[in-house]
């Protein structure tokens, strides 16, 4: 009657079915309504001047564009990270509470398929949401760049700068507009949100409540953001040249192994906002690190979930 799926260790197709169902669930929960206020914010940024910006005569007119990018990327980071935590924390405990999980696991569905499917579903929705926000950011930034460039050109011309100098000044402004580097910043936030979703997935496999999952995931998010600072303090010589002790070293190693280092992702995003040079190799490295973190957390989730009783 049917070309039935095997019940092997892992079936990408079955994981895909669960991922698609998760996407449908989140879409029908109207999560994309969050994008409306974000769109308003991005458009509103067009009419918002930074307090230190004093018009085209200021030494760095691109500051305004940097502020625009920082606010957009910051909003994207906040939205994607919170969305990753809340949606992942709600989905699995929700399935357990509703006993929907019983009916799913009583079909020939390996638990790894279920976990990977749920995670892929959340990551897919984050990807679509970030794509929409990215398009909004690029469009609004494009118009803002045009406006600042034109304003600067007029001002420099009025104070007697030469055509070439004006063009150079405008080129400097345009280099802070939409670019591939900026996309790297968006990608870094997407990677980060994906890791956070994997962390929330791990916590939700042993947590007894949604609140605990959300609180713990937020905690790990914060630790991940500051762990490089903590590691620096533990591994390097202290103020008085004191070598870190064995306990400090062990603690530092555990922290760096257990918690993801989000500072790496933040630095790429900061660099993108400042239009600094970011190489393809750096992004490949970041992508590899993301894959590593997600794989580790998913395998840990599987270890916990495979023995879980319902």
């Amino acid at each position, binding site marked *: 009657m*049917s070309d039935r799926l095997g019940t092997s260790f892992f079936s990408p197709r079955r994981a895909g079915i669960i991922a698609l169902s998760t996407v*449908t669930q989140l879409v029908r929960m109207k999560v994309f309504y969050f994008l409306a206020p974000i769109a308003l914010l991005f458009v509103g940024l067009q009419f918002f001047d930074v307090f230190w910006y004093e018009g085209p005569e200021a030494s760095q007119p691109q500051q305004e564009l940097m502020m625009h990018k920082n606010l957009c990327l910051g909003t994207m980071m906040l939205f994607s990270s919170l969305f990753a935590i809340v949606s992942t924390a709600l989905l699995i405990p929700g399935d357990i509470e509703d006993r929907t999980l019983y009916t799913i696991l009583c079909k020939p569905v390996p638990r790894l398929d279920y976990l990977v499917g749920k995670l892929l579903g959340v990551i897919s929705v984050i990807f679509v949401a970030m794509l929409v926000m990215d398009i909004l950011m690029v469009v609004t930034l494009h118009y803002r760049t045009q406006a600042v460039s034109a304003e600067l050109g007029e001002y420099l011309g009025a104070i007697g700068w030469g055509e070439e100098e004006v063009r150079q000044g405008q080129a400097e402004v345009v280099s802070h507009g939409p670019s591939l580097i900026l996309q790297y910043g968006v990608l870094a936030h997407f990677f980060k949100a994906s890791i956070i979703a994997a962390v929330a997935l791990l916590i939700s496999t042993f947590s007894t409540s949604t609140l605990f999952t959300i609180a713990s995931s937020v905690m790990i998010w914060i630790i991940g953001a500051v762990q490089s600072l903590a590691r620096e303090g533990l591994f390097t010589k202290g103020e008085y040249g004191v070598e870190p002790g064995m306990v400090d070293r062990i603690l530092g190693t555990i922290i760096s192994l257990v918690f993801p280092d989000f500072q790496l992702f933040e630095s790429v995003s900061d660099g993108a906002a400042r239009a600094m040079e970011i190489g393809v190799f750096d992004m490949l490295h970041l992508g590899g690190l993301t894959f590593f973190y997600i794989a580790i957390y998913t395998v840990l989730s599987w270890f916990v979930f495979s023995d879980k009783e319902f």
Partner: protein
Amino acid sequence: MSEVPAVQVNRLVKDFKGSFRGGGIRAVDEVSLSIAPGEVYGLIGPNGSGKSTTMKAVLGLVKPTAGSCAIFGRDSSKVDSRMEVGFLPENPYFYKHLSAAETVSFYGKLCGMRGAALKARVNEMLELVGLEEARHRRLRGFSKGMLQRIGLAQALVQDPRLVVLDEPTAGVDPTGSRQIRDLILDLKGRGITVFLCSHLLEQVQEICDRVGIIHRGKMVNEGNLEELTSMQDRTEIILQDAPPELLEQIRNLVDQANKGELVSEGHPRSSLESLFLKETIEAESKQKAVSVK
């Protein structure tokens, strides 16, 4: 070679850990049962007696502390054993954002079905449970009875050889309950093995071939329903068109009567409910006696 049982539970034990101060509980204690293919088996017992835990162990949702469970000869902790099983939990909830057809289709896809075969099977299942007209309605607005029926449709979507039903008529009105009962009888007619637990003893009596009575985690009685409910120390004589004088004679000396027609002779039955109460009360008093000693 004897036929492989649809369900085989061997000396199943399930302990649940307590808090730090101890107080662990043995939910299932050395339970064994065997269900033949095509049989309708009812597991009955009071709340907290271990029915659902036994069922969950059969479905691989809990790990046995000791003993084993198998479905058609395959270890039920293995995923592939579930290819032959459909499960309807008590008061099922499904994804409320999906419609009836999408729900059945989702579970069909999980079993590896797709394309025209899946579409045809979804239609067939919705027709079977009488929900064709609600096929595009989201489950959010479904009544308990409708949810139970969609639950049955998803349980049957991959054409399983075994259907496990946990309180299939819980919270369903008498009409819905009757429909579900008829569906179970239909499954029985099609040779599908049914393993159910229910509190509705009359319904169990009506549809089950065999029953097991579980109390405080132990199987206190098990067997063919007719045998279990028959009262061996009594004889029942059913007479048709017997005149009053014959009845009088029978009352005086039945074996000397030569009028009227003796239609049948057999063993009168108590209700399953009486048996259930008797077994559980007896087990309770035995346990009390042991603890007093």
